[in-house]
């Protein structure tokens, strides 16, 4: 276990040093990168992805992947947008509750199909990715929710707040990150998620209700994607059924995987995921500063995913070799 712990620490150190090197290189090439404005841009870009990444990390630790989160985000954003048109006075807490429950239901549907019919989660969520996206179009009638449909107190949630004028969504996502850390590291349920991911059969024999744990992960993942829908409406001020959340699942998965979460389940940490998302956010802001066209962003993210997957596999291979349990 101590060896395992050491590796985990090294993995987070690895991503941290990549971030440091990247920031130094970017700052040397163009000092504009170190201005307060660009760091403000970084920290305004990540809350949305960070919140979704917390849920996705739990699902990946549990040996599954949920690629329908982009559509869940869009659906909850459309629902809350349509509600704002009807009731502009809807309070922030109530809208948080509504988006969270919409996401929770959609996540539980994913989890139910995966656990009940024992099908690989990527195939199931590939289906619900389209299903939910179609629902977005049906519910909204294909119309966009405009800036003037979204009430002022929701928009200001992502600009100012009660605390040192740090944006509200940043504080809120920080709370979610800390809660997730407490859940994963210091609760029985969190340890059961790790156990389920590292060996579902052994976890079942140990008396863990694997179905319930998996359902919980998918439910939380959907719920956080739903909350991210509210963040989206607040941050961007519009919700477009064809654009909102399309392809965001791959950014989230990229962040989780480069944060050191193993896709074979059972390992990964909140700190690593946070650093992974931070790196993506920095790359996002650094590209225009470094005069790299925005078209390259997707290719760079894709390359990062593939390299992270390959490294992950090499680390697993080495660990197996060190513990003497390899039969190649």
């Amino acid at each position: 276990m101590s060896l395992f712990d050491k590796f985990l620490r090294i993995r987070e150190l690895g991503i941290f040093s990549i971030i440091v090197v990247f920031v130094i290189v970017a700052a040397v090439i163009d000092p504009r990168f170190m201005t307060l404005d660009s760091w403000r841009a970084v920290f305004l870009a990540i809350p949305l992805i960070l919140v979704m990444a917390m849920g996705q990390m739990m699902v990946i630790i549990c040996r599954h992947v949920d690629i329908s989160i982009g559509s869940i985000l869009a659906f909850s954003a459309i629902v809350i947008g349509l509600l704002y048109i009807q009731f502009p006075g809807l309070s922030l807490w109530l809208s948080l509750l509504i988006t969270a429950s919409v996401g929770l239901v959609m996540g539980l549907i994913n989890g139910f199909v995966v656990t009940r019919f024992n099908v690989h989660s990527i195939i199931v969520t590939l289906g619900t990715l389209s299903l939910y996206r179609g629902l977005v179009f049906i519910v909204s009638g294909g119309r966009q929710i405009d800036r003037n449909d979204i009430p002022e107190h929701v928009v200001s949630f992502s600009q100012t707040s009660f605390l040192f004028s740090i944006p509200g969504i940043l504080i809120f996502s920080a709370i979610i990150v800390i809660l997730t850390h407490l859940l994963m590291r210091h609760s029985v349920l969190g340890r059961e998620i790790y156990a389920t991911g590292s060996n579902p059969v052994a976890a079942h024999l140990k008396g863990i209700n694997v179905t319930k744990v998996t359902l919980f992960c998918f439910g939380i993942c959907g719920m956080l994607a739903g909350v991210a829908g509210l963040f989206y409406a607040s941050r961007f001020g519009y919700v477009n059924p064809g654009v909102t959340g399309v392809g965001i699942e791959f950014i989230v998965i990229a962040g989780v995987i480069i944060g050191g979460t193993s896709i074979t389940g059972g390992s990964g940490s909140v700190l690593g995921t946070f650093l992974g998302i931070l790196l993506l956010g920095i790359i996002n802001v650094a590209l225009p500063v470094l005069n790299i066209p925005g078209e390259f962003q997707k290719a760079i993210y894709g390359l990062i995913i593939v390299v992270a997957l390959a490294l992950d596999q090499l680390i697993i291979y080495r660990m197996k070799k060190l513990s003497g349990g390899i039969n190649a």
Partner: protein
Amino acid sequence: MLNKFSLYLSENPTLRYWIVRPEWVAVILLIISIISSIQLSPFFADLAFIMDSATPYVEYGLIAIILTLIIISGEIDLSIASMIALTAVIFGTAYNAGLGMPASMFIALFSGTICGLFNGILVTKLQIPSIILTIGTLTLYRGIAQSLASDFSLGGYPSWFIGIDYRYIGIIPIPVIIFTVFAIVVGFFLSSTIYGKQLYLIGTNPQTAKYSGIKVNRIKLLLFTLSGLVCGIAGVLTTSRLAVARFNMATGAELEIVLMVMLGGTYIFGGRGNIFGTFIAFWIVVILRAGLNVARIKIESQLTILGAMLIIAIILTNYIYSKSQK
């Protein structure tokens, strides 16, 4: 009545083998979708119309047939749609750079092969699960296509190249003929050659296959490479049909391609399935799409139906296999 029937079936294993098969679900679904589409519009029952509606899906159908082989051998390739876009963009870039048509086609097919080979090497050498790796390369290939083409449409091809879907032999468009011939060839390969049988064995139990002397990794590598090559062909076909190449073409096509394979009764965990099922499922998707278009249901709303069908198809197939295994 149903109990008696199932008892009768359990006493006749041969009959049960032929009756309890997921392909029949596909055939029944095909009949249901034809009947309901005719109900929606009387103009639907026109063979020429159905043939014309089939041409845009031929590119997906070709890939679905290769994907059937990959899923039977226990892997999956989700980067297919991105490979179509990437090869099409490379084709357009090469042609606009002044290379001739044959050279551009060769480069497109070659780059598709390289993409497939890259997937295959990472899956077989590094043992990364293909389902997650191809999610990564899905983003990577689409990103490379976007870096190459930016937001431009690459066009300007000679007139003989454009519009392969408007060339007919009789009333049958040429792409449909290509698809049918390809399906028959691969179907024969899968059902009647020793290599086909090896795919089933690999999918059923890779460990046993390895110890039986089957070169598991080499065959998987070949399949992924083949998938890349066919995506290259599909990319050129799509460019011919649309007369332009863009980085965002075939977005979301992985849903329809996987749907074709799943509706055809191929088992998601490998080892079972056949080309006949995929061939029928291709026509289900064509008729469903055409029928929904005739019924004036929005393209975006059709996603809901396709997504739901994918999940229902998987559940049904799993159910039938669990019954027939008893």
